[in-house]
C-alpha cells in the first residue's frame, strides 16, 4: 500500500519544501511477519530444511551459548525469527520474521531484546541506524566468523569509510593497521551520545588512553582544554605525532614567531628596533631557518605543566619545563 501527496512547489522556500517532502511520506508495508496465530515449532523442525545453517550455527557464539543455557530463554531459531508454524506449513519466506529486513522505521531491533548493555543505549539515535544499516549489515549471525560474527573489523568499517583508510597509511597514525587497535576503541558504532559515534567528547576520549595529558595543570595550554583536534587529527597525518600541520606552521596559527628564530646572526651587538640606537634585521635566510625550527624543541610541555618556565617574559607559562 502506498500513498503520496506532493507539496506545492511554487513560492515555497527550499527548506520548507524539504521538510514537507519528508513529513508527507509514503507508507510501505513489507511482509516480514508471521501471522498472529503462528505457533512455535522448535529448532528440530527448522533443521529439516535449513540444515546448512544449523550446522554452521552450532559453531557460532550464539549457537554455543544456546547449548550452555539452562533456562527456557535459550537462544533458538524462533528467538529471533518468531513462531514458525505458518512458515513451515506454507513454505513461504514471507511468513517468518526476518531481522535482516529490519529498518529504522520499524520496532526496536530484535537483537536489542537480549543485547541490552550500555553500548546499545543510543542505537535508536545512531548515525548507522539512520543510515539504513541494521544489525546484519555488519554481523553475520549464522556464520562462524569471529566473536560477533563479523568479518575483519577494520576492513568492515573501511568498506564504507574508505576515505579513512588513506589516512591510516600516512606516516603518523594510530596502530590500527598494525592490529594493535581497532576502530571500536574510539567509536561506539552502535551510537554515541554525541556525533561521530563517539561516546565522550574528543578530549575525554583521548585522555582515556593518554591520561598524562589531562591535568589539571598549573600552566595550561588552552587548546588542550578545548579540543584535541585543534592540533591533532586522529586517523593519520603527514606531520609527526598526528599533528594537523608540521611545526612551526601549526603553532604560528595562534602564536607569533619570536625573534630567536628569525633574526639573522650578526657579528656585533644588535639592538631592538623600538629604539633608534638598537637594530635587528629579519632576513629571508633567517626566516627560512626559523621555519625549520620546531617550537617544541624549547616549548616541550605543550600539553601543560606544573613547573614554571624560566623567563619572566611569559610569567612562567611558556611551557618550556
Amino acid at each position, binding site marked *: 500500500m502506498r500513498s503520496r501527496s506532493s507539496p506545492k512547489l511554487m513560492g515555497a522556500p527550499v527548506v520548507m519544501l*524539504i521538510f514537507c*517532502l*519528508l*513529513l508527507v511520506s509514503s507508507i510501505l508495508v513489507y511482509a516480514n511477519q508471521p501471522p498472529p496465530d503462528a505457533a512455535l515449532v522448535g529448532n528440530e523442525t527448522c533443521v529439516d530444511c535449513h540444515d546448512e545453517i544449523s550446522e554452521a550455527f552450532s559453531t557460532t557464539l550464539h549457537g554455543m551459548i544456546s547449548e*550452555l*543455557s*539452562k533456562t527456557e530463554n535459550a537462544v533458538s531459531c524462533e528467538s529471533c525469527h518468531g513462531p514458525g508454524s505458518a512458515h513451515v506449513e506454507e513454505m513461504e519466506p514471507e511468513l517468518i520474521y526476518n531481522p535482516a529486513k529490519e529498518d529504522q522505521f520499524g520496532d526496536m531491533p530484535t537483537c536489542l531484546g537480549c543485547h541490552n548493555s*550500555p553500548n546499545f*543505549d543510543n542505537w535508536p*539515535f545512531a548515525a548507522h541506524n*539512520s543510515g*539504513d544499516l541494521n544489525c546484519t549489515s555488519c554481523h553475520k549471525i549464522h556464520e562462524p566468523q569471529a*566473536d560477533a560474527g563479523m568479518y575483519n573489523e577494520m*576492513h568492515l568499517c573501511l*568498506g*564504507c569509510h*574508505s*576515505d579513512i*583508510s*588513506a589516512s591510516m597509511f600516512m606516516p603518523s597514525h594510530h*596502530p590500527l593497521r*598494525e592490529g594493535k587497535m581497532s576502530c571500536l576503541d574510539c567509536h561506539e558504532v552502535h551510537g554515541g*551520545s554525541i556525533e561521530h559515534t563517539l561516546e565522550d567528547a574528543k578530549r575525554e576520549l583521548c585522555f582515556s*588512553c593518554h591520561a*598524562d595529558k*589531562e*591535568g*589539571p*595543570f*598549573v600552566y595550561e595550554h*588552552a587548546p588542550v*582544554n*578545548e*579540543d584535541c583536534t585543534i592540533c591533532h587529527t586522529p586517523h593519520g597525518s603527514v606531520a609527526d*605525532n598526528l599533528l594537523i600541520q608540521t611545526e612551526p*606552521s601549526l603553532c604560528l596559527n595562534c*602564536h607569533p*614567531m619570536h*625573534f630567536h628564530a628569525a*633574526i639573522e*646572526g*650578526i657579528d*656585533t*651587538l644588535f639592538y631592538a628596533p623600538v*629604539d633608534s640606537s638598537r637594530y635587528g634585521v*629579519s632576513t629571508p635566510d633567517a626566516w*627560512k631557518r*626559523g621555519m*625549520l625550527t*620546531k617550537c617544541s624543541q624549547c616549548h*616541550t610541555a605543550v600539553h601543560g605543566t*606544573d*613547573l*614554571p618556565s*624560566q623567563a*619572566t*617574559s611569559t*610569567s612562567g607559562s611558556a611551557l*618550556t*619545563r
Partner: protein
Amino acid sequence: MKYLQILMLSGLLVLSICGLTVASQGTTSDVNSVWIGSHYTDFSDYVKKAGEYNLGNDEVLPEIKLNYGLRGENYFMRLNSHYYDDKNIFGNLTGYYEDRLKFNVQYQSLIKQAGRDLLENLEARESVGGNTGGGKMLTHEVLDADADYNTHRQMITTEADFVIDKKHKVNLMVAHRTIMESGTEQMISNSHCFSCHITSRSADIDKITHQIIAGLQAEVVGQTIGYEFGFRSFKSNADEVYNHYDVAVNPNDSSAAGEFSSRLLYEDSTLPYGTYPETKKMSHKFRVKGDAGKGNYAAAISYSKAENNITNLASTAWVGSASYAVGLSPRTRLIARVKASRLRTDDTLIDLPNYREGTSAGPQTNFDFTRYSSLDRADARFSAEVISRLNKKVTASVLLGYDWIDRYDYPIAGEGLTTKRMKGQLKVRYRKGIKYSTFVKYRFEKTTDPFVSGRGLFEERGRDELNPIPETFRFVFYFQREDLRYQSITTEPTDEHIFEWTSRWMPDRKVNLTIGLKGSYDKNGDLDSLDINHLALRPNLNLNINPNMNWSINLGGNYGYYKSSGPITVALFDG
C-alpha cells in the same frame, strides 16, 4: 633471554590448558592449533621512520601462535595468542559460563620508536664569537647521542559481565584496564645562559594508568536503569630528571648581566623538569533508557572529578544528555538530542618574584597573577533530525543543530568568550534493493566567536600605553608582551561546508565496490583580509571481496588533497 621468555610463555599456556582440561567436569571437547615458526627482519640500509610501530630485531627470532578452545557441559572458553617478539605479544582469553557469565582478558603490547632526534633541524643563530656577547642566540648539546628512544606500551584489559537476575535483567559489569609504558625518552631542557642553552638527555619511561569501571543495570517497570562508577589514575614512577639552570648572561651585552638575570624566575639552580602529573579521576553516571509514548529515549547524567595530586588542583564536570526518537508517521522519524555540561577548574595564584627583585636597578614590579582556567565553562548542544523514506528507494533527512559554549574568565579575566554555532545538514539516499545504494550529504556550520588561543593570535600593534613600564623606559621588555598579546583573533573557522557522496554496488554479499568523494572547505569570515581558509578533497575507491569465510580481499585507492591558507605571524623583536 628471549628464548627463556618464549619458553616461560609456552609453559604458562600449556599449564593453563592442562589446568582447564583437568578442572573441567563431565563431557568436554577441545579444539586447538599451534603454529611455531620463525621470522627474520633485515634492517640493513633501512632508515627508521618517526613514530613507527612493530619494529622487529635484526636477527632470526622464533614466533608462536596458539589457539585453543575448550568446551564443557556448561561452559566454553577460547584462547588466542601470538608471540612475535618480546615487545609484540597478543593474548586473549574469552569464556562463558552457562548464559550467565562472560569474561574476557586481553593482553596487547607494541613498541613505538621515536625515530628522530627532537633537536634535529634545530636552526637558529649560533655563536660567532665564543663566550663574548653578540650573535649567539641558541646553543645546544646532546648528552646521550646514541640513545634509542622508544616506548614499549602494554595493555591488559579485563572485562566481566554477570547476569544476576534474568527476569529483571539485572546485570553486573566490571572492567579494568592497565596501560603500562616503559622505554627511553628524550628529555629537553632549556635555560638562559647566553640566551637559550638547550640540553638533551635520555630518561627512563615508567608510566602506568589504571582504569576501573563497575556498573549495575536492571529493568524496572519496563525501563532500563543503570549506574556506573569509574576510576582512573595516572602515575609516573620514573626518576625525575634534573637540569642545572645557568647563571644567565645577556647574549649581547655581558655588562648588563644583572638586568638580564632579573628577567628570570630562577637561575644557578638544579631543578627537575619534564615531570609528569599524578592524577586520579572518579566518575558517577546514572543512565536510563526505554520507551516513552511512541518513541524511545535514553538519558544520562554524570559527575566526575579529576585531581592533580601534586598541585591539589581539581576539575569537576556535570554532564547531562538526553535523546529521543519518535515516529512521526510510519515512514518518518524525528531524532532529538540535547547535551549540556558545566565544567569547573580551580583557579590558582601564580606567585612570581618581582621584576628586579634583589637588585638596585630601577623600580620593582609585581607580576603575580591568577591563572583562570579555560576549562571553567558551560556548554549546551541541541540537534533535531527528521528522516523520511519518501518511497521504497529514496530516504532523505534534514538536521538542524545549535551549540553554545560559554567560557568564563577566558581568554581575558572578567570577560569570557561565548561561542555559538548553527549546524545544518541535508542528506539524500537512494537505494535499489541491496545491490546498489548512493547518498549525497551537505553540511554547514556557522560559528560566531570561535575558540581563541589564550595568548591571542597577534600582538596588538600600535598600542599606546605600555603598562606597567613608565614612559621613561626606552625598551619594551619581554614581560610587557603579556599585555600586548591579548587580542581576540583566531584562525579557527567561522564557516564550514562539508560535502560527501558515496555510491556502493554490491552484486552479492561477497563483493562490495564503493566509490566516493568527501570535500570540505572552511574559512574565518571574521578575518577576510587575512584570507584564512582550508580545503580538503578526498576521492576514494574501494573493492572488497569475501569469496569465503577464510578470505577477505581489499583493493582500494584513496587520494587526499589538502590546502591551507593563512598568514604567518611576524617575528617580534621587542626585547
